[in-house]
């Protein structure tokens, strides 16, 4: 299919261009805060993209996805605390630990459906939260300061804010591309088939459980990468990185931006976090404004912002897509 030049494509391209060019603007204007904010947005967008793989494409409503942010973050923090600050060790450990946790949690929780699945993923994530809160050696509740960011070979230097931003952005685009390839592969079609009609998938000959489990593990692993980045960005990691409200934020990003779309989670992350920033500057009670806005999107723009843009594009060109 040839991508038509429509509103949806336009917004996506403009958003990507803005993200790529942002350091030029912040460099010229000296607005360091904006760069920090957007580094955080890009990292959380990566977590949302990973959640979208299982929630949007796989139909697995995990309410514990922030656990992998915590595991990835703590892998970096704990290793740094023990004097191992090589990124070549820290990051693979972050990914492997997230994958292993996802494998165990997924193997158990994927035997349940619906509300039970939501509750069991939430329960496991909270268990992880309290486990890290109980690690006295690593700061317990108060968390752990990271004095040295992950070390790679020169010229890579994560302490350089602009460079770190571009590394995060490149990884985000890499993850979006990876998820896009996955969802269009044989594996991706099986996962989407299982979301649509699991019984039928088994009837035509697919052992769906193992495909859903692999999808669960991939999503958790990718989120672990976002966790490792987040710990580097804040130079700090504490249990609050994986509190259940964070999992809720990730779900909101995916739903707001558009489930099962390649760029929806990125759009949702930018929209939610920028809105949060702007509204909290206006009033202390910004959630009173944010809440109804989210409600409007859920009620009137099913398919999120991405779906809304697609619909508007269809109307603008005089004919909707069938």
């Amino acid at each position, binding site marked *: 299919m040839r991508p038509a030049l429509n509103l949806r494509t336009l917004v996506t391209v403009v958003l990507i261009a803005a993200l790529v060019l942002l350091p030029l603007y912040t460099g010229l204007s000296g607005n360091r805060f904006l760069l920090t904010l957007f580094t955080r947005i890009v990292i959380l967008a990566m977590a949302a993209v990973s959640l979208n793989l299982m929630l949007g494409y796989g139909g697995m409503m995990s309410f514990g996805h922030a656990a992998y942010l915590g595991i990835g973050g703590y892998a970096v923090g704990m290793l740094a605390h023990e004097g191992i600050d090589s990124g070549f060790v820290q990051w693979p450990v972050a990914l492997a630990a997230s994958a292993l946790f996802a494998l165990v949690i997924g193997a158990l929780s994927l035997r349940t459906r619906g509300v039970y699945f939501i509750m069991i993923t939430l329960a496991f994530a909270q268990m992880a939260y309290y486990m890290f809160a109980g690690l006295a050696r690593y700061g317990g509740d108060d968390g752990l300061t990271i004095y040295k960011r992950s070390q790679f070979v020169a010229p890579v230097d994560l302490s350089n804010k602009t460079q770190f931003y571009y590394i995060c952005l490149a990884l985000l685009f890499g993850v979006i591309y990876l998820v896009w*390839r*996955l969802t*269009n*592969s*044989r*594996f*991706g*079609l*099986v996962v*989407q*088939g299982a979301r*649509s*009609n699991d*019984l*039928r*998938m*088994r*009837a*035509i*000959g*697919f*052992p*769906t459980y193992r*495909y859903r489990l*692999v999808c669960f593990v991939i999503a958790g692993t990718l989120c672990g990468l976002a966790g490792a980045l987040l710990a580097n960005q804040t130079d700090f990691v504490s249990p609050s990185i994986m509190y259940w409200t964070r999992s809720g934020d990730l779900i909101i990003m995916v739903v707001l931006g558009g489930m099962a779309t390649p760029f929806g989670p990125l759009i949702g992350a930018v929209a939610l976090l920028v809105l949060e920033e702007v509204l909290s500057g206006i009033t202390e009670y910004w959630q009173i404004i944010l809440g109804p806005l989210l409600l409007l999107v859920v009620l009137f723009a099913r398919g999120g912002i991405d779906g809304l843009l697609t619909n508007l594009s269809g109307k603008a060109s005089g004919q909707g897509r*069938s």
Partner: protein
Amino acid sequence: MSGPGNHPMLRVQALAKRFGGIVATDDLSLSVAEGELHAVIGPNGAGKTTLIAQLSGQTTPDSGRIYFAGADITTLPMYKRSRLGLARSFQITSLFLDLSVLDNVALAVQAHTGHSFRFWRDARSEPELREPARAALARAGLSARADQPASALSHGEHRQLELAMALAGSPRMLLLDEPMAGLGPEESSAMVAMLRALKREVTILLVEHDMEAVFALADRVTVLVYGRAIASGTPDDIRANAAVREAYLGESEDAHV
């Protein structure tokens, strides 16, 4: 029970299934010869869908055995039976409504082409999947609708797509659960023509309410009442069977007995 000279493709032996106090399948034995179209009829609640569910592996029987092509499949999970060549269509249309019509059939093809832990290549551009899928759609008369979402099809087209998906894996045997359900007269006769074209090529167990269709298609008919086979024979035998007339056909106005 099987026809002369044929070994049975499917053999069911003393099958039983209870749900609480309700007996859904009661000491049921039947066999279907290779190439045969065997119809199972019976009033509502006779346990026809429960039988299909046990044959396909969706439900486990309490006792009894099921043999497919000589192998005991009683405890095999659903996906393994499908891989052996035992395909099923659903009474209540069961499709991937948010995927395209072609994707629906291509998934059924994919199920029979090895494992699907293939993560990179675009599955929608693999001729190995798309060509057999297009062929199955053509056979079901749905070629023109290939790129529409499955949710855009009419009820009759959904039934055709069900069949196309069941056929896409080149099964040895089809379990068809009321393929005519909810079809208009024209769609119904198109479906009968399609099934007639399939006969011999693939063994079929047909559960159906539409008596006209059953008597037009079936080589053999088994009549279920309260989960028990009260009669089994050629369509002519069944028409002439007094117990059947009393238990079942008498209730049906358009049975043409």
